[in-house]
């Protein structure tokens, strides 16, 4: 872990050099200064030097998180406003092992670079310039965050974005758990967490990282990737199934090969049968037998054409060929008629589905009107005949809400049925079109045969021509079957590939072993801090009922803790959460920086009880003796400061009216009194 040793903001102005510095000790540090002193300037300087300004929702390298006093113009006591010529801030960090690090980043000036000064344990100093934001984690040599993670001894951790791209954890993802700024930090747990990077479950991952549960993060990321892969595989399955169905239907085979349902079910279904197997079982299509039959036919026709004797008295060849043409034309006519009927059915069913959609929409709108009471008429008496002008007098009815709801349900059922009909008609259309294409092909061949046979002179030549045409037709049929087999085998290969991928996905291990103890450490620390800070919903009796869910959201007895207690408990919850994370991380030696910054916790609730509870916390051993650094920026009354100091709490009260002061030309800069 590390601690902050010094925060400095300095610069040059028209009026001369200016500077503000704050020196911090280990453990609990309460910085007390009145409002508009510049405490938040010091708080922002920490985030700026670490290059985590995206947590404030501002663009990279844009120092708009700072007040104009360090960017444009500042006022010194008793002087005219002075223009800021240049400004920068720096933080000094000390590692537990004795290494020092100073980070300096310009505020007005070139703020893309951070000047880094490393001091090793042996006193050796190394200076470098690193990029604050650009490729900050990826750039091995120039990225600031890459350097900081290495300097801290933290591992880089891959995560996944919602788009399925690879990303990693950045310092700005972790900071919202230990850096609570005045403007937004107190609105929720990890309120400053970055959402626009699109990292999945980043708030949970940040907590797990700070608790050192890297195995758990890997498992979480694997689960996310599995889920995305699962969705991809399901989509691929639907696509393959659609192609298989199209190929089957085109050839007139009505066989079910569905790509719907959960991945495991599709996997089980597709693994149990092959495409060829399902065709043989459900459509009686045995390619082996078909090929054998066609080969035999080709052989017989070839033999008849080349070596077998020809009966000269046989004059039936032209009639046979002609008969085939007639049969095929009849088939084509029948199929065309069927196709026209199906097209009409398709058009009408589509219209009906559309009409049902309209009816459902209208009925749903009517139901909405009825529930809101719009368009309802009161009973009125006819001024002349004094009869009640009730709708029933005019043979009109007003349906009840229940009746309209039933009607909507009935319409939905009808629509679903019509959609099924539409699907069935679609399938029939594909089958019929496929059959028609085959008949067209056969007919063209038969017509060519007829032309050849009728042109032949003599019965012998007629028979030879017929046999030759039949042989050609049989060979083409054989080719068509081979094409079908090839196409189905290609689809089978895709199915097999899919099965391999889906099986591999099913075997991914998603469990983590490093989480339970870390969660427990965090939970027990959270209980301690909530009790110490005086969260009103928590009592010694129910403290054991406090739990954290999968998203690390605290729950008490089944209720989200945020919704319990009083409004002022919100800031106590957020402070407890951040402090408990640091305490747990220290206990289990995880990846927390060891610094918790709480900016203006007392301003969140002006009530006296909140102030009293917080001051009581600051004097407790839990706060004072913490093994990490807690820096609280606030304003305390003189009595409170005296009392806290008497109880051993370190309270820093910087001198002067403002944090930034002109640097005296002869003596050193203004210091801070502790």
């Amino acid at each position, binding site marked *: 872990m590390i601690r902050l040793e010094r925060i400095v903001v300095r610069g040059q102005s028209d009026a001369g050099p200016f500077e503000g510095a704050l020196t911090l000790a280990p453990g609990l540090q309460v910085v007390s200064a009145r409002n508009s002193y510049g405490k938040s300037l010091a708080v922002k300087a920490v985030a700026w030097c670490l290059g985590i300004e995206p947590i404030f929702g501002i663009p990279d390298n844009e120092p708009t998180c700072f007040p104009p006093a360090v960017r444009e113009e500042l006022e010194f006591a008793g002087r005219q406003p002075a223009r800021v010529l240049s400004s920068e801030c720096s933080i000094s960090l000390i590692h537990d092992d004795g290494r020092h690090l100073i980070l300096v980043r310009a505020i007005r000036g070139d703020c893309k670079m951070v000047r880094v000064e490393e001091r090793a344990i042996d006193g050796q100093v190394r200076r470098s310039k690193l990029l604050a934001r650009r490729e900050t984690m990826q750039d091995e040599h120039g990225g600031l965050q890459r350097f900081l993670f290495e300097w801290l001894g933290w591992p880089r951790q891959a995560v996944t974005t919602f788009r399925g791209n690879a990303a990693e954890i950045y310092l700005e993802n972790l900071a919202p758990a230990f850096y609570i700024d005045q403007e937004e930090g107190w609105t929720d747990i990890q309120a400053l967490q970055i959402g626009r990077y699109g990292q999945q479950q980043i708030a949970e991952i940040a907590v797990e990282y700070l608790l050192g549960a890297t195995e758990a993060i890997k498992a979480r990321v694997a689960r996310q990737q599995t889920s995305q892969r699962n969705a991809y595989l399901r989509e691929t399955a639907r696509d393959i199934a659609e192609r298989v169905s199209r190929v089957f239907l085109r050839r007139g085979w009505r066989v079910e090969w569905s790509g719907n349902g959960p991945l495991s079910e599709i996997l089980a279904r597709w693994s149990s049968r092959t495409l060829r197997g399902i065709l043989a079982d459900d459509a009686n299509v045995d390619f082996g037998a078909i090929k054998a039959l066609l080969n035999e036919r080709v052989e017989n026709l070839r033999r008849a054409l080349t070596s077998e004797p020809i009966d000269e008295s046989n004059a039936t060849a032209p009639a046979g060929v002609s008969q085939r043409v007639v049969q095929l034309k009849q088939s084509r006519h029948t199929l065309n008629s*069927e196709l026209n009927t199906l097209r009409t059915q398709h058009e009408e069913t589509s*219209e009906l589905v*559309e*009409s049902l959609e*309209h*009816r459902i*929409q*209208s*009925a749903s*709108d*009517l139901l*909405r*009107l*009825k529930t*809101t009471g*719009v*368009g*309802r*008429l009161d009973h*009125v008496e*006819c001024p002349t005949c004094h009869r009640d*002008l009730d*709708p029933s007098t*005019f*043979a*009109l*009815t*007003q*349906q009840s809400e229940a*009746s*309209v709801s*039933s*009607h*909507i*349900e*009935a319409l939905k*059922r009808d629509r679903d049925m019509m959609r099924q009909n539409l699907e069935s008609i679609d399938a029939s259309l594909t089958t019929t079109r496929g059959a028609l294409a085959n008949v067209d092909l056969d007919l063209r061949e038969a017509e060519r045969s007829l032309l050849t046979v009728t042109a032949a002179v003599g019965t012998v030549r007629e028979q030879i021509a017929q046999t030759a045409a039949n042989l050609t037709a049989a060979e083409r049929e054989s080719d068509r079957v081979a094409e079908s087999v090839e196409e189905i085998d290609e689809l089978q290969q895709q199915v097999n590939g899919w099965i391999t991928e889906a099986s591999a996905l099913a075997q991914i291990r998603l469990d983590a072993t490093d989480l339970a103890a870390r969660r427990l450490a965090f939970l027990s620390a959270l209980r301690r801090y909530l009790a110490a800070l005086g969260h009103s919903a928590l009592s010694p009796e129910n403290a054991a009922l406090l739990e954290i869910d999968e998203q690390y959201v605290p729950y008490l007895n089944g209720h989200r803790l945020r919704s319990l207690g009083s409004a002022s408990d919100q800031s106590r919850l957020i402070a407890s959460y951040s402090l408990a994370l640091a305490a747990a991380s220290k206990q289990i030696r995880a990846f927390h920086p060891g610094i918790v910054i709480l900016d203006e916790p007392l301003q969140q609730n002006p009530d006296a009880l909140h102030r009293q509870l917080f001051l009581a916390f600051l004097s407790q051993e839990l706060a004072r003796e913490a093994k990490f650094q807690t820096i609280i920026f606030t304003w305390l009354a003189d009595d409170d400061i005296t009392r806290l100091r008497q109880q051993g709490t370190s309270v820093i009260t910087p001198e002067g009216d403002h944090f930034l002061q002109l640097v005296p030309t002869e003596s050193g800069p203004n210091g801070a009194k502790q």
Partner: protein
Amino acid sequence: MDKIANPLQAIGELLAGRAQPVVTPDRLAPSAIYDLQYRMAVTASAFEMHAKPHGLNQRRIHAARLKLLQFVACRPRLLAVLRNWSQAQHDAQLSIATSQRLRRGFLGDQMHEDVVAFLVARGILAWSGSHVATGPGSDWLTQLHSATVEQGVFAIERDVLEKLRDVRITNAMLEGW
């Protein structure tokens, strides 16, 4: 497709034994198209969108036109039919053929007359010869139309009524209704 040798005999056999009627009470819910509130809302929109100023502070619409507008608004698929019919006005034969699908249900739509009679009795609408005009309580009709627009309900019906502005509905088409 298998052909049935004797269709009448096949139907007779089905009705005799195998095709027992099944009554599902929840499917017998009357269509919302016969609900007064629905028809008043559509009539209000049709009137508000198509009625023309008349006299000092009245608006009116031909009764048959109003009936046709609300009828098509409730059945959006008839919009194309009406459009074809309108375009076929120059050809009497074609005109009769294209209007057949529309006439079939339209002539039997007694409910619209009942709704108009009800609104007239309530003083919301008033008869003005062959026209339906605004009555003393016509504000209610305007409010109902505005409420449907505000709540975004019956958008399909209003869309059809909007498109009907571009369809020329001649007196010849309205005669005989």
